């Protein structure tokens, strides 16, 4: 009887717990886009949505990764965007990506509206994240961190008051390489790991044989309704890979030839799991996919019974590239020689209308950027007046230079932005181990409203598209690293020469002395020398005494 009561009580508790548990759901998808008949753009999207009635403060983790959740709670993170990228996304050849990312590591975080010390939380969070992802994010210190004012607004709901930028921190490390050891902890955050669903295609060593590889983590709070009384948190994990497909006469590819893995059936914990293909109309996929949704061939991975190797046959006659209409592209170059340097960004607007964009660039503190040399003009020489110029010069060793501009890109025109800087000097301990490799200026970020780009944008859920330019490599003059002791000695010698002479001049008087006069020190030295010489001479004369 007692046992029955216990069982009933346990079931009751369980049901209460289950009822009180916030609902979470996991969606996974992979989109395969064939671009220009010679590239395959695979975009993996793993989204965990968690319904919270009010603030994100879970006691029990289910699908949401606990390691990340605890960090988010500890450092009061409202929104997190972290990407690591290897390679450069070529807008003019591949169009706009689903999720844009600059070369290297990029981390921008909106902290909670009631955070007391944002900088302390930022340093703690970057260090914790660097441990979580085995990346050197601890190098994102105050000398690299900026607070953009117009470029990185929250993508979800944010409670700190509209946009109170003091809760935003942005840091980029263009020097950071994406390695397999970054992929492994990233994949561990997925509910099914890499054992099922689209994640089964992810083979770390094979992914690095791609043209472009980017992993990303995005955490934000979204509103359930327009009045935002109820919110849910969303964790998106992205991987973007661009492979070269086929060569020569064969334009066919299979999943096994690119990823070395087959796609496994869906993860049982997922609510939706799909693979989508976007191929030219005359291409064929086997095994065939019947469902078509908005130009994509969609296969529900729950319907798969076993590991499947999709084979895509492209029409050999379509060897000429399919023209992708270019929207806006941005290329940046370093200029200047010697100590004078400069940054030149060429922004091409191929759209038929004028677009107002936000340009954001961070320059390290030791490249002394000069605002009065800023020039914004079209290639034909027509000067453009920016609407807003926001320039924060660097504080030596404390913050970098930050340039944010709002201006209009004229239709069908190339706009050129020029700014000069002087290369500065660092102390020998501030140089990284390979000092002659140079320093990176992080990529410039061009923020464009998605409405202006229309159909060109692949990502219709966000309000802005970001286009990143190249990361620039700048060498600065290095000191001689083998010289610290020598330099200290030499400089102190010169100072000692001055000090000694002036000390003598001020503490002694010029007096008449006989030329034969010896100073007491000289007398002592002469006496010592005489004694030593006498002893040596005596030993020579009487060698028998030593026997």
């Amino acid at each position: 009887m007692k046992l029955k009561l216990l069982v009933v009580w346990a079931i009751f508790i369980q049901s209460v717990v289950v009822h009180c548990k916030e609902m979470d759901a996991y969606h996974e998808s992979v989109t395969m886009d064939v671009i220009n008949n010679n590239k395959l753009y695979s975009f993996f999207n793993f989204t965990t949505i968690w319904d919270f009635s009010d603030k994100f403060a879970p006691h029990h983790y289910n699908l949401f990764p606990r390691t990340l959740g605890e960090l988010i709670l500890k450092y009061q993170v409202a929104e997190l965007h972290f990407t690591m990228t290897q390679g450069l996304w070529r807008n003019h050849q591949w169009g706009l990506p689903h999720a844009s990312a600059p070369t290297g590591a990029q981390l921008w975080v909106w902290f909670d509206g009631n955070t007391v010390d944002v900088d302390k939380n930022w340093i703690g969070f970057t260090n914790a994240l660097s441990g979580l992802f085995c990346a050197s994010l601890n190098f994102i210190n105050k000398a690299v961190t900026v607070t953009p004012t117009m470029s990185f607004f929250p993508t979800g709901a944010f409670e700190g008051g509209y946009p109170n930028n003091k809760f935003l921190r942005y840091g980029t490390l263009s020097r950071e390489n994406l390695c397999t050891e970054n992929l492994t902890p990233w994949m561990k955050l997925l509910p099914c790991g890499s054992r099922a669903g689209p994640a089964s295609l992810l083979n770390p060593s094979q992914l690095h044989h791609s043209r472009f590889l980017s992993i990303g983590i995005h955490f934000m709070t979204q509103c359930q309704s327009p009045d935002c009384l109820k919110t849910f948190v969303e964790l998106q994990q992205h991987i973007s890979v661009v492979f070269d497909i086929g060569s020569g006469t064969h334009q066919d590819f299979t999943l096994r030839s690119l990823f070395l893995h087959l796609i496994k059936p869906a993860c049982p914990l997922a609510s939706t799991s799909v693979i989508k293909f976007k191929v030219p109309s005359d291409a064929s996929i086997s095994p065939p996919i019947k469902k078509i949704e908005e130009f994509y061939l969609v296969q529900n991975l729950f319907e798969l019974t076993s590991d499947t190797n999709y084979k895509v046959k492209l029409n050999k006659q379509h060897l000429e590239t399919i023209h992708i209409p270019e929207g806006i592209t941005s290329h940046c170059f370093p200029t200047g020689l010697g100590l004078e340097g400069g940054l030149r960004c060429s922004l091409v607007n191929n759209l038929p209308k004028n677009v107002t964009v936000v340009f954001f660039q961070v320059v390290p503190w030791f490249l002394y950027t000069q605002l009065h040399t800023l020039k914004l003009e079209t290639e034909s020489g027509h000067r453009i007046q920016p609407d807003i110029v926001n320039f924060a010069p660097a504080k030596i060793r404390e913050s970098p230079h930050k340039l944010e501009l709002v201006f209009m890109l004229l239709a069908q025109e190339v706009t050129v932005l020029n700014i000069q800087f002087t290369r500065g000097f660092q102390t020998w301990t501030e140089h990284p181990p390979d000092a002659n490799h140079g320093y990176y200026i992080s990529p410039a970020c061009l923020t464009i409203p998605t409405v202006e780009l229309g159909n060109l944008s692949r990502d219709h859920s966000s309000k802005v598209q970001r286009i990143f330019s190249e990361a620039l490599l700048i060498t600065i003059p290095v000191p001689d690293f083998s010289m610290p002791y020598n330099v200290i000695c030499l400089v102190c010698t010169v100072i000692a020469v001055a000090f000694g002479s002036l000390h003598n001049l001020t503490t002694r008087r010029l007096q008449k002395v006989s030329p034969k006069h010896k100073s007491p020190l000289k007398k002592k030295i002469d006496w010592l020398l005489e004694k030593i010489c006498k002893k040596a001479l005596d030993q020579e004369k009487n060698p028998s005494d030593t026997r």
Partner: protein
Amino acid sequence: MYEICALFVGIGLRMWLFRMPRVLLWISSRPEIETPLTSWGRLIEGEALMRNSQSYQNKHSYHGSTLLLALISYLNLNAPFLVEILFIASDVISAVALYLFAQKFLRKELKSQKECKEKLFKGVSSILIKPEHVSKVPTIICALYMCNPFSLATCISKSSVTFNNLFLALFLLSAVQGSIWQMAFYVALSTYETLYPVQLLLATGLCAWKYQEKPSTLKICYLKSLACFTFWMALILTLSFLCEPTTSSLLSHYKFILSAPDQTPNVGVFWYFFTEVFDHFHTFFMCVFQINVLIYSIPMSIKLKSHPVFLVFMLIAITGIFKSYPSVGDASLWLCLLPLWSHTFSYLRYPSVTGAMLLTSTILCPVMWHMWINAHSANANFYFAATLAYTTALVLITTDTAMAYLNWHVRIREGLKPCVAGTSEKAVLRLMN
């Protein structure tokens, strides 16, 4: 007459060089002439930042003084052509001030020499100050200042060292006049620009004591000069605060001078030392180097109590060599004043060595810079060696001049060939306790 010619030649040279943009560009990239503290480029950048942000919190690129920025930005807005005229006029006024100072000083020296004729040894008339000195030396000084390449380069590059030299030249002129108010004013102006001339206060009291019409005690002179200096300094700081109502800009200016965070090469001893010093010694050596600039003022004031103008010369020289961001403009002022002591030149121990060293290092500096930065066929040590040789040459010139000066003062009392006391054996003059 000749001095007017020299002035016009100097003005002409400056105006001609201002019209040559390639020369201006080359000179503005010379680290020997432009430093992060004094350069024109930084000033223009500060002005652009101020206009852009409308706030004073954002001027981190500019490390100079506020009043200078306010003056130049006002001129740039309203009358840009006046900026060049301002720099040329500053040089002209400095040269005229140095001319008048040299004239007055040498006249007073000649007068005091005549008054103390009994104390002088017989037969030293060949090394005494003569009336030709009084007529020729001021002209030479004026011509040297207007036409020497260091001050030409400083003026062309529009660096604020020009104004510093102007204040020091006017200080020298007011020193021989004995006017405490003027001396304190120019010391305050110089101290506001670059912190180090504060040590000239010690010399102010001494100059006032020696050259005043109404004789008073040394203590009163010192107190008066301190009080005047405090008054002028407070006035200037208040003006600066009115231009820019934040204390951070003033503090950041002095903090930059004292902590020297920018390791850009210049002709000083700071840059490579603090590039290479071990981190845990950084603060210690920074304190040592800053004390090194200021410490010589006290013992030298005691030693050169009755030679205050020479004391000022020595202090200007030492500051110009050992300050945190020196340039050749700092050296040009006191190098031009060397002819004042031309009567002591026969007792210089190694003038040709130091002269050659200075010339060689000055020519080598741009060569080594080009080889390091542009051609990449040398490394930083080459340039460091050239600047170290330059600094050593200046140090040797300074100490040699001081030694010759003291030597001269002993010889005019003891004779050209002094004998050991009591015997007829020829003696040698040595620094002894």
